[in-house]
């Protein structure tokens, strides 16, 4: 630790701390532009000049590390003149745009000029003219005249994200920020440069000229688009969410968002948003629909007794709403058949659930079936951050496609999804044959043939055991992995953390509310429906047809139920089976708790009114309660926060029983030429966005570049004919080097109908005539 004095106050900070950060500890503000803790020092803007005793010149506080006994002054004539000088320089070529600039009122150039700048300009010459509102891509604009050349954006994309899509062009006063070859930036993370830009140079295209700081409100929330649940701020104006910004959490989170999250806030007022109540395919009043549904419930209960109504939670509801559904089901609808919608079969006990802190400490990370860049993008950034600080980070991928990538290099073990648990079990058996539970685990798969050499299997097992701090990301596709992970954690004495990447986004919140989120539970509920034990389904955000891996079960249950009630934000694929479609309020319209993939609770604020007839869950259950003439205690305030745990859910309790054998995967039909695999891809998570339309592609399925060449698919994708058991469908495909040959990757829960009709895929062929896009 180093002791120094800043403006007469003593402070002790770790070695290597820069003066600006030491000053911040004392609450002393040193103005900065180019410096950002996540990006490191650059020394370009010279805004942070301070005086250090015994040094002949002013020094930049962002590039000067503290030394023992150092005496720093951040005030005084020399510093003040230095700051004035730098600000005057920044202003000479800065356009007089403040009155029309989106950043006006929240701009560091305005703030610092006001606080430290010259009162008056002396510059009389013509200003340099540059491009205004040029595109970075469809979502981000650049006004080169307003740029202070702090390079935060360039360094973020290049050094931090690792996708060098922005650069400086020209030199001296002609220098500008632009994109490589003047082509649109395609990274998933481009929107972050808007937050990083200290001035109004990088702007959100959809927010352009939509609000000023004094006529907007900002609400603290979390992004609802994937299980990361990034902390963010929603900007609202006139009951519309018009912007999402990252919200840094000191010492924990830089506040990055992916473009999916940052720009996908408009589903609430998208043209597809359900704003009317529909009963038996006819629009009706909210009151009528509520009455009809209540009547059906009463009738079902009267006829078939308690437990004849099944409730399935999906969507992006809050934990409090899940609690209300659970309570309503039990107290009023007399049913404990409440389940969580699942699109994969895996479940992770909270005891094994790690936090993002585990990623910042990991020396080894294993991607089980998941590519974080696509499924949980900001986790990819968190890993990039780790890689910057720890270049030896070992990255291993296990799954039916390559899961590492250029920006997250590592080693891939290519095994079929159904073989993932076998691969782990055998790896553990090879590296720790006497470990507790290992022999049981591997018992029925000892001689199962894997496409990986014994040496590689053992090396993988050894890597799992040797890791100082092991973090695994798991997509939940292979349910037997839960068993493996429990045994693995038991074998290791050092930290072992698993982060589940599967949805629905708030499944842990639903679990906190007392609903069993395991696949078995929803499967059992639907089996009961299929057999007629359950007569009515209430689907709260759940879309069985789209999400349930067992499509046949979904269809049979939906067909068999007397009534299917579905509360939704956008039309589900279940539509043909639905008797009552209820418009329900969603994220941003209801305040409540979300629990993310690290088991952390956050509050999402309500900032806008739901459109049309859309009502919050609470309104529906309260009305039904009244219609049932039953007061079921809506006032009992249930609180998902447990004061002992802070904002993390409890990890205790889930004591794992004795190890179970990994089941032997069924043999694959060797006659099938193609393997279909699924993966999570945030852009295809079902929530529509007009803003993101330019980023969307019809060619969402992927094949290897070799197959693409054979199928005549060009650089940007194309259509192919898929012959399946049920007939021929046309599907949009593109090439992806991560996909192995004879494999068709499709996004899980795709909004595309055809994705549900690929069962029994026989072959893909070039279509006779390519339909125009």
């Amino acid at each position: 630790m180093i002791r120094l004095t800043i403006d007469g106050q003593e402070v002790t900070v770790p070695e290597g701390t820069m003066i600006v950060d030491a000053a911040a500890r004392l609450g002393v503000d040193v103005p900065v532009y180019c410096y950002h803790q996540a990006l490191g020092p650059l020394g370009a803007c010279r805004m942070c000049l301070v005086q250090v005793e015994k040094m002949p010149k002013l020094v930049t506080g962002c590039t000067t590390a503290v030394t023992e006994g150092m005496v720093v002054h951040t005030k005084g004539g020399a510093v003040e003149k230095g700051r004035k000088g730098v600000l005057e320089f920044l202003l000479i070529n800065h356009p007089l745009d403040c009155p029309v600039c989106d950043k006006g009122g929240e701009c560091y150039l305005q703030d610092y000029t006001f606080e430290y700048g010259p009162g008056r300009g002396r510059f009389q010459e013509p200003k340099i003219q540059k491009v205004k509102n040029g595109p970075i891509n469809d979502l981000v604009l650049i006004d080169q005249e307003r740029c202070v050349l702090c390079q935060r954006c360039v360094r973020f994309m290049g050094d931090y994200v690792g996708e060098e899509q922005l650069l400086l062009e020209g030199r001296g006063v002609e220098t500008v920020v632009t994109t490589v070859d003047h082509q649109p930036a395609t990274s998933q993370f481009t929107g972050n440069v808007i937050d990083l830009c200290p001035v109004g140079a990088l702007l959100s295209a959809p927010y352009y000229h939509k609000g000023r700081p004094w006529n907007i409100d900002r609400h603290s929330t979390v992004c609802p688009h994937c299980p990361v649940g990034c902390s963010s701020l929603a900007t609202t104006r006139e009951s519309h969410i018009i912007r999402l910004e990252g919200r840094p959490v000191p010492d924990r989170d830089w506040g990055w968002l992916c473009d999916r999250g940052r720009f996908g806030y408009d589903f609430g007022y998208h043209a597809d948003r359900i704003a009317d109540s529909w009963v038996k395919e006819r629009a009706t009043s909210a009151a009528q629909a509520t009455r009809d549904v209540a009547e059906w419930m009463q009738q079902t209960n009267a006829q078939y007794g308690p437990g004849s109504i099944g409730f399935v939670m999906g969507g992006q509801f809050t934990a409090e709403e899940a609690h209300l559904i659970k309570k309503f089901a039990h107290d009023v609808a007399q049913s404990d058949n409440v389940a969580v919608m699942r699109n994969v079969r895996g479940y992770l006990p909270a005891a094994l659930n790690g936090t993002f802190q585990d990623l910042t400490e990991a020396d080894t990370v294993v991607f089980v079936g998941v590519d974080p860049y696509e499924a949980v993008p900001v986790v990819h950034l968190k890993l990039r951050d780790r890689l910057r600080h720890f270049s030896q980070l070992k990255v291993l991928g296990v799954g039916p496609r390559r899961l590492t990538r250029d920006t997250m290099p590592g080693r891939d073990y290519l095994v079929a999804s159904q073989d993932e648990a076998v691969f782990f079990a055998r790896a553990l058996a090879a590296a720790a044959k006497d470990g507790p539970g290992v022999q049981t685990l591997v018992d029925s798969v000892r001689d199962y043939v894997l496409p990986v050499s014994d040496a590689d299997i053992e090396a993988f097992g050894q890597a799992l055991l040797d890791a100082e701090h092991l973090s695994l990301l798991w997509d939940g596709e292979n349910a037997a992995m839960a068993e493996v992970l429990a045994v693995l954690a038991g074998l290791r004495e050092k930290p072992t953390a698993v982060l589940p990447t599967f949805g629905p986004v708030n499944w842990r919140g639903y679990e906190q509310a007392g609903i069993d989120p395991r696949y078995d539970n929803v499967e059992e509920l639907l089996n009961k429906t299929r057999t007629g034990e359950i007569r009515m389904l209430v689907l709260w955000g759940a879309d069985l047809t789209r999400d349930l891996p067992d499509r046949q079960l979904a269809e049979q249950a939906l067909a068999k139920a007397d009534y299917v009630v579905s509360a939704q934000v956008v039309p589900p694929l279940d539509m043909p089976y639905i008797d009552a479609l209820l418009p329900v309020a969603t994220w941003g319209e209801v305040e409540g708790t979300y629990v993310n993939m690290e088991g952390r609770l956050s509050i999402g604020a309500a900032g806008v009114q739901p459109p049309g007839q859309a009502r919050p869950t609470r309104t529906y259950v309260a009305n039904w309660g009244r219609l049932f003439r039953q007061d079921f205690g809506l006032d009992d305030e249930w609180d998902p926060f447990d004061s002992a745990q802070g904002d993390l859910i409890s990890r205790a309790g889930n004591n794992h029983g004795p190890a179970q054998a990994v089941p032997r995967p069924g043999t694959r039909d060797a006659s099938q030429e193609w393997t279909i695999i699924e993966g999570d891809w945030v852009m295809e998570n079902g929530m529509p966005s007009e803003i993101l339309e330019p980023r969307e592609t019809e060619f969402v399925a992927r094949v290897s570049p070799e197959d693409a060449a054979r199928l005549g698919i060009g650089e940007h994708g194309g259509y192919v004919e898929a012959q399946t058991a049920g007939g021929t469908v046309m599907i949009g495909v593109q090439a992806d080097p991560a996909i192995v040959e004879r494999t068709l990757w499709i996004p899980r829960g795709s909004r595309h109908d055809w994705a549900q009709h690929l069962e029994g895929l026989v072959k893909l062929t070039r279509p006779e005539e390519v339909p125009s896009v």
Partner: protein
Amino acid sequence: MSQKYYLLRNREVADIDRMDVYLAHGGYQALKTALTDYKPEELVDLVKKSGLRGRGGAGFPTGMKWGFLPNDGRKRYLVVNSDEAEPGTYKDREIIEKNPHQLVEGIIISSYATKAREAYIYCRGEFLFGAEQLQRAVSEAYAEGFLGENILGSGFSVDLKVYRGAGAYICGEESALLESLEGRRGNPRLKPPFPAIAGLYGGPTVVNNVETITNVPAIVTYGAEWYTSMGTAKSPGVKIFSVSGRVSRPDNYEIPLATPLRSLIDDYAGGVLPGHKIKAVIPGGSSVPLLLPDKLDTPLDYESVLQAGSMLGSGGCIVLDDSVCMVGATARLVKFYREESCGKCTPCREGTYWMTDVLDRIERGQGTEEDLDTLMDIADNIGGKCFCPLGDASLGVLVSAMKFFRDEFEAHVREHACPMGAKLYDTVNH
């Protein structure tokens, strides 16, 4: 005045740039001596003893720089700075165009001394002929077995590549040079770490000027004592001065350090043009302050020139006589820095732009009294506040001109024109 050349050796010999001619005149003898008679450490010691200082401008002791390389087994690099772009300096250019083999020989010896396995010459983009000459010399040296694996059976190996920049003054600054050499935008790097610790591709790297390295064969041949017998104790040896401006024989002159400035101008460069008087001298390239004629007896060594109020710099000696308008000359030089500012840091990028415009206005007779104070205040806001020395370099001539010749600036303001009737150049082109 008779002149003995070591750095510009055999300057008069035709085709000395060809291997056979160079060999016939004793070329690569120093290399043989170095490889057979010296261990690398002994060569470092020899250069330390000679007191050789860097000729790129800063005058940093070369042997000491070599001694900074950490002994940690990482691959080492030697990078030779041939980006010479400072107005008034053209000494490295003569070496690479006329006598490239002496540089190549110096590089091989220096690589041996510093145990560099890879060496680069970073050549200024505009020096097309120079780069071709170097490339040819390097190929010839490979053909003779002076470069590559196991040179002359010594067990020592080094590869040398010539790299052409794209034409930017800032790429002469060593860290910007390394960025550019690695294929990135030529912006200076944050220091520390210095190149000796983390230079090219993060490896330990020595960066030396062309002239610095060209000294090495001579020091090996004639010894450290010979070198220290010239110049002063702190500034020993010989140095090339590029004389330009209003003199009769502008050229490169290789003279012992501590030779008086007056002698360089009068005895070597043939004196100021007939009928004119010296008004001021820029002794060390466009980045250093002016010296007035009362300082003409200053010995040309690092310490004395500093004491006289300027710097020896790269040895580009620009002579200004009484026909020169100081406002115009200053405007011209400041514009150079505006054009060459890399744009990384605010004061240099914006300040040089602003100063250029103000100077242009004054030169055109459209300046005001207030402009003169503003100009000095801009200079003060640049001075000592930039990321790299280029920003400060833009002030050397301006600040001294305003100090010594403020009356000329004031006259421009008062008379709304150049009192000397000097021709206007188009300084600013937006």
